[in-house]
């Protein structure tokens, strides 16, 4: 019997104001490996067809920009758009960030996200910059950076959006979300939190699952780096940060931030970095307005 035809799931991945760390983190996916994701049927019968991704794609120049545009027309309403990096919105946005050209004029990142975003099946804002502005939007936010959600709100774009923040995001958070969309469709409203983050990955505080939690409860605090004990007094933001790092661990499970004796800096939160900094100062209520209050949008 002939094998059923593989369903191709087109993906366009554009990089805006980013350090490329989100792409590098995705390459670190263990199982499935990045090769499984790009070459194999990552879900039986379904293949992620990555049509545009500047870090790995073979081609360059006009030809790849054409490929991106053609895909968005041919696969209108069927492709997934992944946005990595924040979106510069200064008056002359193309001066601050552009992707390719039309008629020898650069096309701004904001125009690309708008054009590709409105015709996509769904948009994944990958990383804290794409989700909320992130590092690029740190004060004084020189390039006027914002996240995809804010842009969509301004432009009235209603394409479903999933936020996968993290600086960088854990590869499982991204691949896991992609797999879920392929298997079960888009997440239902109750499956994401008020910031559009899948509860599967961002549903609990670091502090709730931290292996150093017992030290906190007993009031045993590390006074300097390299000491055992809870890192609260060294500035840990675990009590206000929503992610499953302590359970999932990083880089094939070998370690994670707090595991290496370094405080959590709250890199998945909408207020990162300004509301979480200074990173090595003890958390107090007055320097953290609204962080971690999941009731508020």
């Amino acid at each position, binding site marked *: 019997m002939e094998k059923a035809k593989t369903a191709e799931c087109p993906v366009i991945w554009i990089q*805006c104001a980013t*350090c*490329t*760390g989100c792409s590098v*983190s995705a*390459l*670190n996916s*263990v199982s499935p*490996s990045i*090769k499984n994701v*790009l*070459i*194999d049927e990552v879900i039986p019968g379904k*293949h992620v067809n*990555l*049509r*545009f991704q*500047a*870090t790995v*794609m*073979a*081609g*360059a120049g006009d030809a*790849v920009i*054409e*490929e991106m545009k053609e895909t968005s027309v041919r696969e209108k309403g069927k492709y997934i758009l992944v946005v990595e990096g924040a979106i*510069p919105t200064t008056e002359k946005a*193309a*001066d*601050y*960030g*552009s992707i*390719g*050209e039309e008629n020898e*004029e650069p096309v701004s990142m904001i125009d690309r996200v708008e054009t590709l975003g409105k015709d996509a099946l769904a948009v994944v804002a990958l990383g804290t910059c794409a989700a909320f502005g992130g*590092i*690029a939007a740190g*004060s*004084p*936010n*020189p*390039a006027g950076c914002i996240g995809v959600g804010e842009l969509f709100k301004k432009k009235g774009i209603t394409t479903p959006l999933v936020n996968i923040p993290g600086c*960088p995001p854990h590869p499982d958070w991204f691949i896991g979300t992609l797999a879920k969309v392929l298997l079960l469709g888009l997440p239902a409203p109750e499956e994401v939190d008020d910031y559009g983050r899948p509860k599967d990955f961002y549903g609990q505080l670091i502090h709730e699952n931290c292996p150093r939690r017992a030290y906190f409860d007993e009031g045993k605090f590390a006074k*300097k*780096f*390299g000491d055992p004990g809870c890192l609260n007094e060294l500035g840990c933001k675990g009590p206000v940060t929503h992610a499953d790092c302590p359970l999932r661990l*990083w*880089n*094939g499970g*070998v*370690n994670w*931030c707090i595991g*290496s*004796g*370094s405080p959590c800096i709250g890199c998945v939160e909408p207020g990162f*970095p300004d509301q979480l*900094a*200074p*990173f*090595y100062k003890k958390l107090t209520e007055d320097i953290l307005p609204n962080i971690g209050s999941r009731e508020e949008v």
Partner: protein
Amino acid sequence: MGKIIIDPVTRIEGHLKVELITENGEVKEARSTGTLFRGIELILQGRDPRDAQRYVQRICGVCPTSHSMAATLNLDSAFGISDKIPDNGRLLRNLILGAAHIADHILHFYHLCALDYVDITKVANYQGGNSALNSIKEFIGRGELGPFVPRYEGDYRLPDEVDQQAVAHYVEALNMRRKGQEMLSIFGGKMPHNCAIMPGGVTEVPTVDKIAAFLWRLNELRDFIDNVYLPDVLAVAEVYSDYFEIGTGCGNLLSYGSFDLDGSETDLTKRSRLLKQGTVSTDLKLGELDTSKITEAVKHSWYADSSDTRHPTQGETRPEPGKAGAYSWVKSPRYDGKVYEVGPLARVVATYASGNPRVKEMVDSVLSRFNATPAALFSVLGRHAARALYCKLIADTMPEWLLQLKPGEPVCIDYTIPEEAKGMGLVDAARGALGHWIEIKDQKIASYQCVVPSTWNFSPRDNNGQPGPVEQALTGMKIKDENNPFEVVRVIRSFDPCLACAIHMITPKGRSLGEFRVC
């Protein structure tokens, strides 16, 4: 006159556009433009100095570890503790940095460069039992070749069997670079953006199980470097040997050195390092590094200041888009007024010139295989070979550092943040000489400056009209087919551009090419 525009240049870090003016198939003029601005140095102003280590890594997610090292050396120096870092701290920093560079160079050769030489579609004819190749064959059979097409066509020269093996290695290298990041995280916490490297030392404590876990990942990587990576570089060099003469560049190399062998010297230009600091030109004589000779020119950059004598710490950044005669947002760093290339080639040749017997033997054995003189190192293939040899050198040295670790002894020291201070951090990043400078006032960052490898390599002409290293490497080059300019991207990628780094501070891109627009 013809014009070739490549926008975007892909398979690099960051956003880059390259424009070439050609005449009869020869490049007459070359210029490169970054197309993204964020302004990390502006974002750093007024913040807690200790946070710099975290922010600067976000300049670049491909080479964050090198930035964390430069920032930490910079802060150590500003805090007055450069010579007080415990040996465990120094060794763990070396191991973390070494892991980053190994993973990065494997990524660079296989995933950023190889598709310029290797034709993945040749796997369609594969007959054999390699499961990775068979899955790629099946992938090709399905007819949807993203992200491997479109691409340049016409100059894939490897014989089928060698080509197919290279594709299998591309897949294996994905696992290897991931393993390198895993190895790094054992002591660094996580990747990208490690959290353990800190002023005063590191936060992670070495234990025997971690040392063993690191060692055996390292052994796998050494096996890969010796038996796959280096042989593949040589196999490509055999078939594309014309690239020993293409992309020569400026002939001057600058290295800040890397991997501290001893922490007692506070002057980083004199500190004992595995890879040596210094300058070296085609005569292979090592010159002493003197950072006071570094200046930045902006005559051809969109900045108001036209001085060419400012040290980076005195640099001004007043954007003036459309400035007459300017054509780039990248400034032009120069050393002693001359153009210098940075990168693995620079640090390997500097160490070679210092007389290091191990490096001499490694480099000479590659040169003798191709009947080449050291002059051949200044080329596209020279850069790839130097990168692979460097990878082998550090991977072979890292077990020594692992065994020098002393579990139970301190990894970092305490310090206080001074009210006012200045600092400097120098290290060779994966892509070359990386300098960070800080000024602290009221215990906060008053000013933070980075001069990064890609700013050196991708700089425009300076005040004396000297083109930057990549411009020199491209100019005069013959292009066989202007619709498929393989030569251009092979030269550019041999420098391993990192544009997020080069433009971390560079201000918005203007459109006017001013009087430089030729056609």
